[in-house]
């Protein structure tokens, strides 16, 4: 039976579905569709009513749908090194027209099912049915999938369609592309890049612009070494907003609509504030949900924070959570024994594997760095510049530590699990020092593991399980020592 989903979560899912559906519709109607980095000031695009899609969100979705490897490999075949960020590789392969598709027989136009796919078949009592011939569990045919193959939309479009057979084949090949929304995102007419997250973003978007021969609108946020954002830095970003507006006016042929911009800013602030309040519910003991759920809701702050629907959906979720905490209910599917901060972007292709040892040990994730990372709250334009200056990888170590220790304290964590993410050099680059500070300042143990946000080849499950085990033992010892001291 499917897990019961609260109205807030349902609303949040719809918001993201709509973003993708609207963009597909816009593209079909011949309107401009853009791709944007997640922390580009979306308020600017909203002021022009532009349909904008988010390659980072898309790459995470593709990775979670287990197509990260085939897309990363496709990018590598185009010449992009496997050291490059997995999101960038997936996105660049996609921009080049590469798609994960379903294998089919070109003669019969029937899918070729992968016998290894699918879930075990269960009987009426929920017991796994064993195949008497092989002694292994039988597969539920409804869950079995065709083999995954790589295809190319530009190759498909170049196919002839003179005969009935050719047309049928071409159509089937189009339809064979995996049907989930991230694999059906329209190609871009322009790109919006803000490098507050990383410099890789700059090169990634330059590559897309070159590949598709489209305009690139760039907001450059140089790295900052101090907690405060100086006026000179604000002036630099303000001037870029003006330049970006001018560029958007040229691209759209529309005048900048200040009213719409103000509305988008108001929406973005409302969403950010609701997002932060939702994140704050993780402070309750036990937490009414698992921090892993926040990773899913991130899609909304990324793709729709300038839209009123996103703000409303988060406010709805907030209400659900308020009800839940009244009764002490939680959606975490296990009793919470330990609370940890999960540092970094999750390994999307391996979410179940990440979750498994946590569940087994009663470890709930009650803090994630994404909470403050998307809390762009501001009063005016200068404030907006300052807000966008503070992305996770554009702040100095003191600010980074302060954010994290703040949520660790508020959300009462017993330990920290650090993802050394092969894809993210700026993020992982000062984690060793941060770990030392967490332990020194908060007295909590930390454990690091090697992984990747999108490329499953960089995750070692055995190492991860050992590290989680080590962290649990350290938290256990800490707890015992505290209890002994209390006596």
């Amino acid at each position, binding site marked *: 039976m499917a897990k019961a989903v609260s109205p807030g979560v349902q609303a949040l899912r719809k918001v993201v579905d709509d973003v993708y559906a609207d963009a597909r519709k816009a593209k079909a109607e011949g309107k401009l569709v853009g791709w944007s980095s997640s922390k580009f000031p979306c308020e600017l695009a909203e002021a022009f009513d532009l349909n904008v899609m988010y390659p980072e969100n898309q790459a995470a979705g593709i990775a979670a749908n287990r197509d990260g490897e085939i897309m990363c490999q496709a990018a590598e075949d185009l*010449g992009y090194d496997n050291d490059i960020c997995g999101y960038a590789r997936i996105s660049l392969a996609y921009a080049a027209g590469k798609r994960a598709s379903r294998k089919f027989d070109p003669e019969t136009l029937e899918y070729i099912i992968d016998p290894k796919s699918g879930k075990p078949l269960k009987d009426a009592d929920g017991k796994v049915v064993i195949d008497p011939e092989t002694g292994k569990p039988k597969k539920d045919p409804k869950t079995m999938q065709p083999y995954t193959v790589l295809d190319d939309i530009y190759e498909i479009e170049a196919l002839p369609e003179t005969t009935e057979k050719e047309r049928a084949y071409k159509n089937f090949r189009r339809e064979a592309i995996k049907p989930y929304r991230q694999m059906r995102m329209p190609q871009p007419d322009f790109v919006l890049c803000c490098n507050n997250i990383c*410099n890789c973003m700059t090169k990634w978007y330059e590559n897309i612009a070159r590949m598709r021969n489209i305009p690139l609108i760039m907001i450059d946020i140089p790295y900052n070494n101090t907690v405060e954002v100086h006026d000179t830095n604000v002036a630099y970003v303000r001037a870029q907003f003006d330049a970006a507006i001018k560029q958007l006016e040229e691209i759209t042929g529309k005048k900048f609509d200040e009213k719409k911009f103000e509305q988008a800013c108001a929406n973005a602030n409302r969403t950010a504030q609701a997002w932060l309040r939702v994140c704050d519910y993780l402070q309750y003991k036990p937490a009414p949900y698992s921090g892993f759920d926040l990773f899913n809701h991130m899609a909304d702050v990324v793709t729709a924070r300038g839209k009123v629907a996103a703000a409303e959906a988060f406010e709805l979720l907030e209400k659900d959570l308020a009800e839940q905490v009244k009764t002490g209910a939680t959606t975490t599917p296990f009793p919470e024994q330990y609370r940890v901060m999960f540092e970094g972007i999750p390994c999307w292709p391996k979410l179940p594997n990440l979750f498994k040892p946590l569940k087994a040990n009663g470890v709930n994730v009650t803090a994630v760095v994404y909470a403050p990372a998307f809390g762009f709250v501001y009063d005016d334009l200068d404030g907006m510049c300052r807000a966008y200056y503070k992305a996770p990888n554009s702040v100095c170590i003191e600010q980074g530590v302060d954010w994290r220790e703040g949520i660790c304290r508020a959300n009462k964590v017993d330990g920290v699990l650090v993802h050394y993410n092969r894809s993210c050099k700026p993020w992982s680059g*000062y984690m060793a020092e941060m770990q030392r500070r967490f332990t020194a300042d908060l007295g909590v143990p930390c454990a690091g593991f090697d992984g990747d946000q999108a490329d499953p080849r960089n995750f070692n499950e055995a190492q991860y399980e050992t590290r989680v085990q080590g962290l649990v033992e350290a938290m256990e010892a800490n707890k015992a020592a505290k209890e002994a001291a209390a006596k």
Partner: protein
Amino acid sequence: MSIDVLLKEFQEVSEHPYKVLSQYKAEGKKVIGVLPYYAPEELVIAAGMVPMGIWGSNKKTIALAKEYCATFYCTIAQLALEMLLDGTMDQLDGIITPTICDTLRPMSQNIRVAMGDKLPCIFLAHPQYRRPAFGMQFTVDQYTNVKKELEKIAGAEITDEALRGAIKTMNASRAARREFVKLAGQHPEAVSAVLRSAVLRSAWFMEKAEHTAKLQQLNAELAALPASNWKGKKVLTSGIICDNPKLLQIFDDNGIAIAADDVAQESRLIRVDAAETGDPMMALAQMYADQDYDVLLFDEKSSENRRADYVVKQVKESGAQGLILFMQQFCDPEEMEYPYLKKALDAAGIPHVKLGVDQQMRDFGQASTAIQAFADVL
């Protein structure tokens, strides 16, 4: 002095930067370490101090730096940190940490934390909008911060006059190096690949005026040589760095000359000069604005393939028959630009080979095979 004697002197410096640093310190000079990329060395010189480039090391092994970074970081940055931690750089009076790539961003923090009160760390963030007025202003703002920090270390103000003088010194150094690159490409029989690198590398360690004077002598000797009758192959080198003598020996052993380069440590950073008159801070900002065709820099005309087209032009103009790309491991800006470089080279019919390198490499057997095989097809 003969060409060989001069080359040996540069090689001595290139091989022993620690000796050079110790010598400057013994002379009572203050020395500022300069990490890649685009730090304005002019400001250091104007403050009466010696800028010394830090480009990792071909001899050290990463050990202490592991306390700060995971394995998947460029070895240039890791080894710079290693040398700050293991005492090699203890004599420095300060260090400038630019942050133009994703490794240098967190590394600036690691270095600052690791150095604590031991060494002043001067932070530098360049804008990616180099040319518009607001970008120029941001560069001036950042350089002004650097200037103030340098003044504190020097204990004296940097005057405009001193800065103009430093610009002249640096312009002369860059001009001499550019001239040398040209002459070395024309006379490979006189300047081996190993020694060519030593000359360019030593510029990062020696006082610029001293290096320029010696280099001008060398250039004069090279210019006086009869036209070369080079029978070997000629290539253009590309990448962040290729200064390992053992790697470059493979070129010399196989009769491969370096006609010119698109290497950050060699020519990429010395392509343009600063104005010697007017507001000197603005002149430095303008110089950065004039930089172009670099994997580290944003290209406002990004839908074109300008950098790769420029490299193709360099290959053609230098008379190189092909390109050897030294791909620094974990350098994502360089890696991100590779597919479009390849596209432009292929379109122009220029053969190339991509070699993965890092500064922990000790065995060059594979590189040797690849370079030999490449030379055979040229």
